[in-house]
């Protein structure tokens, strides 16, 4: 195993085992050794992806994912604070928020961290977001994806109107909804393109939905 391979493995392992000391040490060595940022990024995200997959197969739990997400963010921030490095070329522009009246943002925050880590350009509107702010952001950011979250059955009913107005102003935007009181059928009923069942599988669902929508427009 080459020295570069060992350093990159250390980076992956640091995220997997939420070891911030190892991350800082390996990251410094990697940058000083001139390892390409794309390789460093790939290793950090490799660690995060392993945590995500362990969660999918019940081998780990949400708290561990949250800690690994923090370490990933810390690593990527250090990496991209180096002069001349940028997170991703042609990132997917995405607007996300929790609908008006709903303060529950744990799921949304996890998703934001995952999207950002994997190179999406995220406009996070936060929680309790009025319809007008979603629509304005979709237009201003020329959003490829709009992701709406609701954790209460009393607030999810705001979604159809947001979807309708966002579609009117930006027909090409792919719209995903998620949250505990929703399911796939309700997502369709509300006019969304996709349903995000879990924060853990959000990347796959987003990519699948974008691909499906592209197929429809061909």
């Amino acid at each position: 195993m080459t020295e570069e391979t060992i350093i990159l493995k250390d980076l992956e392992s640091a995220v997997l085992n939420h070891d911030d000391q190892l991350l800082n040490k390996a990251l410094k060595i990697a940058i000083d050794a001139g390892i390409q940022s794309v390789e460093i990024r790939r290793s950090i995200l490799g660690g995060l992806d392993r945590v995500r997959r362990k969660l999918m197969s019940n081998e780990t739990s949400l708290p561990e994912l949250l800690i690994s997400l923090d370490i990933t963010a810390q690593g990527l921030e250090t990496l991209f604070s180096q002069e001349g490095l940028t997170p991703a070329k042609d990132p997917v522009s995405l607007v996300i928020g929790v609908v008006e009246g709903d303060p529950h943002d744990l799921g949304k925050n996890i998703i934001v961290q995952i999207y950002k880590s994997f190179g999406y350009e995220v406009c996070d509107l936060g929680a309790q977001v009025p319809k007008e702010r979603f629509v304005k952001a979709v237009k201003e950011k020329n959003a490829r994806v709009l992701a709406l979250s609701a954790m209460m059955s009393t607030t999810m009913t705001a979604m159809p109107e947001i979807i309708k107005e966002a579609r009117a102003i930006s027909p090409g935007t792919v719209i995903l909804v998620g949250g505990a009181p929703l399911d796939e059928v309700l997502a369709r009923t509300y006019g969304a393109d996709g349903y995000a069942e879990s924060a853990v599988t959000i990347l796959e669902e987003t990519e699948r939905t974008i691909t499906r929508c592209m197929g429809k427009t061909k």
Partner: protein
Amino acid sequence: MNQSTPTEQLIVPYGVVLCGAARRLAGVSYRDFSTKPEATAESYLCAYEKFGGSVLAWTDLSIEAADFGQKIIYPEESTAFPDYTDPLIKDIEDYRKLKRINLKDAKRMQGVLETIRIVLNSKRFEGGSIASLCLGPLAVLNMMRGAKRLFKDCVLYPNEVMACMETITEVLIEYVEAMCDAGLMNVALDTLLASWSGLSRELWEKIEGPFVREIADAIRKKQSLLFIHNCGDGPYFDSQIKFMEPMAISFAQLPDDCPDRKELKRRYGDQVVLVGNISTPLLSYGTPEEVMAECRVIIEDLAPGGNFILAPGCEFPPDGPFENAMAIIEAAEQYG
């Protein structure tokens, strides 16, 4: 607990679990429903008159946290929730600073107790039965710290979290004992974080298991029946049974060790009464026919052999159509 033998007609008990939705029957705002025991009681009396059966005297997830001093927002027409921008537990050091509160000064918990007394003393409630719900200490802490911070703290600072849980548990024991003294025959404990969408099994057993065991013991000592409610994804039935030995578990999603309802019945059907698990999204948007069809499948899977109560996986959606609540009752009668 068995309701039938294979040769008998199945009797399917049901629970509609109208909580927030009950206020609509009484024309009460959500804010009053959460904060005024007379309004809460009136809501439940109306629910009993319309749907019969039992009522769950519970309003929202913020009752216990409010009494510890967490700032709560009470929207006029939606469920109360903590002000997450101003959590009571702001830093790790705050876990050990949480003060024990006196139950007699706990306004919202006293409100629940008062609601129970009003309902039980009402002539309109003759023949009815009433239950209530107490959040487990970790769920209370969730309201005062915020889920994201709490989840990480459980891994990184378990001793601090557990020190705080001890303080909360002392109060919750007093609370459930007062519920039983007020006349409740059933008390439900909400252990939401004992699930795949909460902590790992090992971490939950370490952090919350010992504390909920104490609360469960207190309920049993009062001769009341212990229910568990857990509407998380992949609840850990085995761990919860190990620590609390409940009579029943109300659930929305399948346990993490059961791929389908039939396996759930096989594995746990003789250990606890299974209460559930009608989809709450379906109750929000489905037609009564669709609700009845889902109930039929659930009854076929879970009712044979007894130890089953047909009910929503969580509270009936606060804005859900009452026709769908009626469909649950019709399904229990028609397919039972």
